[in-house]
């Protein structure tokens, strides 16, 4: 394959990844890693480097729009970021000590369950407007745009959300992928945060977590400019489109897309875990 063809194929794939990543708050790794390794035969280490670049590009590219329009909640993001970053360090430490195959399979099964619940057990009782006691004390509540006006929401079950975020960070440190999924699920289901605020706040957070790893992997020589260049440019274009669509898309549709992507992630995890590739 010539450099030009490779660049164009990776660019187009990355655009799809950035689009899905910005919409769902999951980053682009779910698409980038299998596309590079399975479709283009790229070594997994280069793929991991490219995937980190894609996560940061999705996060910063989309966050520029989401933060300004008042979707993502910086307080929730920062508070929970403490749990994810510490979790990521613990996970990276544990990765050297425990077998990750079984964990990958287990995580895959958890994601399958979450995909099912996101679609079929969606909260219909509406988002609570008042925060619970701790949510109030931490001033986590906020408002976000719905049909031209701003909808107020409260935040609940902070300790449970915080613990789940720690778990999300640990998993991402252990398995190198998938923390965005747990973040969205924890905010949506445990903390009762509106779905669009959950996905956009997750989007805001994943960049911070990925930046720490990206520095490390750059130093180890995992980031090849010839691969990362089309990845970054494609992802940014896709993420930009994603932010335009998010504003208009119905929550129901967004849940379906989210469930589909974590379903694919679950299958990836289970297959890789069983084949001992993770």
């Amino acid at each position, binding site marked *: 394959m010539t450099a030009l063809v490779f660049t164009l194929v990776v660019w187009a794939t990355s655009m799809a990844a950035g689009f899905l990543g910005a919409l769902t708050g999951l980053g682009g790794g779910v698409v980038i890693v299998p596309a590079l390794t399975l479709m283009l035969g790229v070594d997994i280490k280069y793929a991991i480097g490219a995937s980190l670049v894609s996560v940061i590009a999705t996060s910063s590219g989309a966050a520029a729009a989401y933060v*300004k329009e008042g979707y993502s909640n910086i307080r929730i993001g920062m508070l929970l*970021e403490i749990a994810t970053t510490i979790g990521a360090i613990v996970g990276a430490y544990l990765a050297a000590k425990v077998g990750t195959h079984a964990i990958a399979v287990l995580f895959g099964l958890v994601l399958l369950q979450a995909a099912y619940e996101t679609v079929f057990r969606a909260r219909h009782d509406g988002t609570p407007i008042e925060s619970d006691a701790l949510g109030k004390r931490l001033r986590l509540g906020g408002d976000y745009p719905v049909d031209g006006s701003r909808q107020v929401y409260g935040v609940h079950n902070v300790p449970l959300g915080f613990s789940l975020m720690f778990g999300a960070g640990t998993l991402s440190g252990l398995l190198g992928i998938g923390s965005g999924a747990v973040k969205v699920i924890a905010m949506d289901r445990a903390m009762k945060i509106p779905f669009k605020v959950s996905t956009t706040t997750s989007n805001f957070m994943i960049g911070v977590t990925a930046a720490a790893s990206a520095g490390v992997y750059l130093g180890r020589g995992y980031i090849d400019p010839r691969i990362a260049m089309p990845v970054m*440019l494609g992802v940014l274009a896709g993420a930009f489109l994603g932010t335009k669509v998010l504003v208009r898309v119905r929550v129901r549709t967004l849940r379906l897309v989210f469930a589909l992507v974590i379903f694919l992630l679950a299958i990836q995890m289970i297959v890789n875990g069983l084949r001992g590739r993770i």
Partner: protein
Amino acid sequence: MAMDDRRLETIIGNLLRAGVLTAAALVLLGGVMYLAQHHSERVKFNQFHGEGAELRYVAEIADGAAHFRSEGLIQFGLLLLIATPIARVVMAVVGFYLEHDYMYTVVSLIVLGILVFSLLHAT
């Protein structure tokens, strides 16, 4: 003008946009130069060799970019991209402080501390 959440969000949003666009411009410039020279070359990434020092360390990358080497320019743009989320946390520390919201100043400082720790610890 007093700092409030809305204003902080706008500033962080603008900062992110400026950082991302500058990074993208550098990567695009490097990419065009790279393709102009190598577009018909065969590429294969099925074996991991690891990048050379000139594409791994900040000083070397900056040097490559300053000499307008295509891969150095791309890598420098990527460095800038990697820096944007960190800059975002720094901005939050400053912003919350100016809002006199000391609880979240501390929260953001803790996040920044962990980030710096994991970057230093690993390298």
